[in-house]
């Protein structure tokens, strides 16, 4: 009983905190960072759905993130579509491209899948970089509008943007939560566990893997579209491997295959690396080893570590309870 | 020669082997009997250093060897021929055998000599010397595993279910070979399900059940033990 109480209320408390924090901080810069972290975390949730729950590590996600961002950018800047329509279409375009990539890429497994998608990500980067006439090439795409007003609500202050991104992030987390906790999610987990077993249980692994892949590109696309509308300037580097490694780092540090891992990892690393800025040249000298140590001492990520402790604790308490009961009896 | 003193081995919380005592004297053939999962392989892995005992000591020639790394134990003279053979699948038969002589790698002539001996013992291996290990049949792989162990010129050889999955005829040959090896001066500790054959060549035996030793004695004693006849020999 107490555990339900605490878990539920923790989540509510965190959400409330997320809503009031701008008033506590009163700091535009932190607001900016928090908004960015929310955006990254959506992409990491996408990655987690595929890598963490379905067991396929895609290294093309920075590419899909960029496709989302560029779709929004091109639709608003070049096609002059209304923002909200573009915001809707961008993830759909990402998913369509994701479907094609997924169909072929999912022929491979394990390392080969990882490298295959790494190549795909790199190809996406090269296309964005080289296809000047469409994407603006290295110059990037400038002048992406922020979200258009909805009636009286406008999104041109950092605060309103933060709330917009926060709401989308929460919706995405809710979506992931529901997927993971539904029969679909159980199916993904079964595939990660053992494709052979899943198949023998009558699960169409091909269909479900593709579904998972496409869904994960959807989240990458949403994150990309948000990013475009928030930074309002995008360049090819957002599809580069650096961003991909960032995603991967957020995911692994937070805890792959856990529900809160992406958000924990993203916020931790983003805030950490921002707070190490004062170290100047020494920043990476500290951050690099810190990252490595974190992995060595907690290979399952922060959330994995906490969960293990939690389970140990539970086991102990239940053992104690059992003992107590045995004594009574 | 080898002495296990109240050895316990855990996998996580689960005790696969509990406080067993085993003694092997020089020149003997000693057999471990027991059902699947009784703890024989675990015991072997512990002796050869692949597992660390949770409790107790393993002494070899008077010195403790528990906690030493597997390669040190091989150097001390104990070589294991594992249940799942652990061959190098893409290497040829001859390469596998040469790797078996790894600890004597500086003595080229001795290696050649040993190689010849192994080929004499198992002529089939000579015919297949350039074949990849993974293409051998189960029986041949088992011979190769034993041959590889012999290349190290061990003082004590651990054989974990050498007859597993082999045709009866091959099993017979196998046991004859084991006797040969033993006569040439190698002490042997053997785990077997095929109690009948094993006891017929062994000096003494231990019977495992659920990780404990429940019966020990000379081959004759075990052979005449009714329970054992019923459980393992099926007479």
């Amino acid at each position, binding site marked *: 009983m107490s555990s339900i109480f605490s878990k539920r209320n923790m989540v509510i408390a965190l959400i409330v905190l997320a809503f009031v924090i701008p008033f506590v901080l009163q*700091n535009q*810069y932190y607001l*900016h*960072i928090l908004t960015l972290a929310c955006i990254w975390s959506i992409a990491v949730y996408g990655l987690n759905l595929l890598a963490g729950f379905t067991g396929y590590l895609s290294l093309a996600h920075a590419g899909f993130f960029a496709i989302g961002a560029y779709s929004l950018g091109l639709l608003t800047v070049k096609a002059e579509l209304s923002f909200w329509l573009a915001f809707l279409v961008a993830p759909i375009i990402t998913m369509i491209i994701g479907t094609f990539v997924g169909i072929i890429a999912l022929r491979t497994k394990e390392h080969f899948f990882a490298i295959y998608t790494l190549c795909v990500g790199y190809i996406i980067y090269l296309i964005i970089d080289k296809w000047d006439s469409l994407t603006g090439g*290295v110059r990037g795409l*400038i002048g992406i509008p922020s979200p258009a007003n909805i009636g009286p609500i406008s999104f041109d202050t950092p605060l309103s943007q933060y709330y917009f991104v926060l709401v989308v992030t929460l919706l995405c987390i809710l979506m992931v939560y529901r997927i993971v906790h539904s029969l679909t999610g159980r199916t993904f987990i079964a595939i990660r566990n053992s494709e052979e077993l899943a198949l023998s249980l009558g699960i169409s692994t091909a269909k479900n893997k593709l579904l998972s892949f496409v869904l994960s590109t959807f989240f990458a696309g949403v994150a990309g579209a948000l990013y475009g509308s928030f930074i309002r*300037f995008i360049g090819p580097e957002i599809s580069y491997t650096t961003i991909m490694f960032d995603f991967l780092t957020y995911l692994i540090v937070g805890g792959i295959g856990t529900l809160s891992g992406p958000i924990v990892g993203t916020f931790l690393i983003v805030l950490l690396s921002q707070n190490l*800025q004062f170290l100047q*040249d020494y920043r990476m000298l500290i951050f690099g080893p810190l990252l490595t140590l974190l992995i060595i001492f907690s290979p399952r990520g922060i959330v994995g570590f906490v969960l293990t402790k939690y389970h140990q604790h539970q086991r102990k308490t239940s053992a104690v309870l059992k003992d107590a009961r045995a004594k009574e009896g | 020669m080898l002495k296990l003193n109240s050895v316990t081995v855990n996998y996580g919380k689960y005790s696969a082997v509990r406080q067993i005592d085993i003694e092997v004297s020089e020149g003997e053939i000693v057999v471990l009997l027991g059902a699947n999962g009784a703890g024989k392989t675990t015991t072997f892995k512990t002796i050869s250093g692949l597992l660390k005992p949770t409790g107790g000591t393993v002494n070899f020639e008077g010195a403790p060897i528990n906690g030493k790394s597997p390669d040190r134990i091989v150097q001390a003279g104990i070589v294991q021929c594992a249940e799942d053979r652990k061959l190098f699948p893409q290497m040829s038969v001859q390469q596998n055998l040469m790797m078996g002589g790894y600890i004597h790698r500086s003595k080229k002539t001795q290696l050649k000599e040993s190689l010849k001996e192994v080929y004499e013992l198992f002529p089939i291996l000579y015919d297949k010397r350039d074949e990849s290990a993974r293409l051998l049949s189960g029986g041949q792989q088992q011979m190769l595993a034993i041959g590889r162990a012999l290349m190290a010129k061990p003082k004590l050889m651990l054989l974990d279910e050498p007859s597993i999955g082999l045709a009866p005829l091959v099993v017979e040959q196998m046991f004859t070979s084991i006797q040969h090896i033993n006569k040439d001066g190698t002490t042997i500790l053997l785990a077997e399900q095929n109690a009948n054959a094993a006891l017929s060549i062994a000096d003494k035996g231990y019977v495992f059940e659920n990780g404990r030793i429940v019966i020990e004695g000379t081959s004759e004693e075990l052979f005449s033990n009714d329970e054992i006849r019923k459980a393992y020999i099926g007479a």
Partner: protein
Amino acid sequence: ACSNDTTAPTSSVENEGKETNEDAEIVYIGYSGPLSGPAAYYGENTLSGLQLAEEEINKEGFEVNGKKYNIQIVSLDDKYMPNEAAANAKRLVQENKTPIIYNPHSGGIAAMQVFNEQDQFIVAAYSSEPDITQVGNSLTVRIPPTYDGYIEPFTKYAMERFGPKIASLPTATQYGKDWSEALLPYWESKGGEVVYNTAIDFSKETDFFTILTNALKDDPDVLFIGGASEPTAKLAIQARELGFEGGFIVMDQAKLDEMKAISGSYETLEGAIGTMPLIFSDYPGTKPFIDSYQAKFNKDPGSEAGFHYLSLFIFVEAMKAAGSVDDAKLIHEHMQDGIDSLPEDKKVYVVEEIDENGGFNLATQYGVIEDGAVAPVE
């Protein structure tokens, strides 16, 4: 450190121990640029000019409205990434109230321009990207000149001395592409011929032989090259190895003196035309700048350092004229005054005026390599 948010990030130039101006107030000037990663050297060069200027300014301090001020540069690393630059700018404004933020790459500048008017800071843009000043941002100052000025004299010189065939191998940045888009049509309009045209990505190319072999297959008379000095020099060297005997048009990011440091001698670069290296320039303030730069950093300054140095003095003068150290708008309005009242000995370059879009207009000099030495072009 995380909880201690009120302490400003310290600049990499230590301010402690300088006994002057203890009662002076501090004006924070922001800098965001690549201080790690492949572009770190570029970032460090730009920052070094600011640091030198900071040091010199703080010897005396400066007075605005009767109050004494010191400068403090707050530098943050953005790894050449637009979003990091934007985050840094937010941070600088929020924590240090910086009225001016420097950024040396077009992506970061564009990202800052999204909100700099709202957040009221001047983007001190070190980029020759034309868009930077054409978007109509009212708080942008573009420091380096646009390259248009080079097109004509470079073409004239190279075509006359070597011939009409040019192979174009600019760096694969927007700046490089724009440069060649401006140069090549002009080259053709003067009767020249473009025999090869591709961009080289210095951050991805291990060896230039492949590209050069193709570029040289139609025997060009002139190679158009440019980008960071050092890889550009490598490109020139390898062109010579492959038997190229013509001249080079070197775009302004690369500096002839820095290229020579790689090639070992000017002979290899014979016939190259490019901007006059700062060390050979003879504006009123160039010499003192070079001396103090060499004293501090133990190497020759490049133009990045020179421009950053110069611009900071102009900003200080503009602040004085505006009578404000924190009103970005006011400072921006008084940039022309700042330019006008710049002391002679700080004129590393001569900035004539600031145009209505915020771009510095300045006279530039070119140099050519003739007979193994740098010579100015008339």
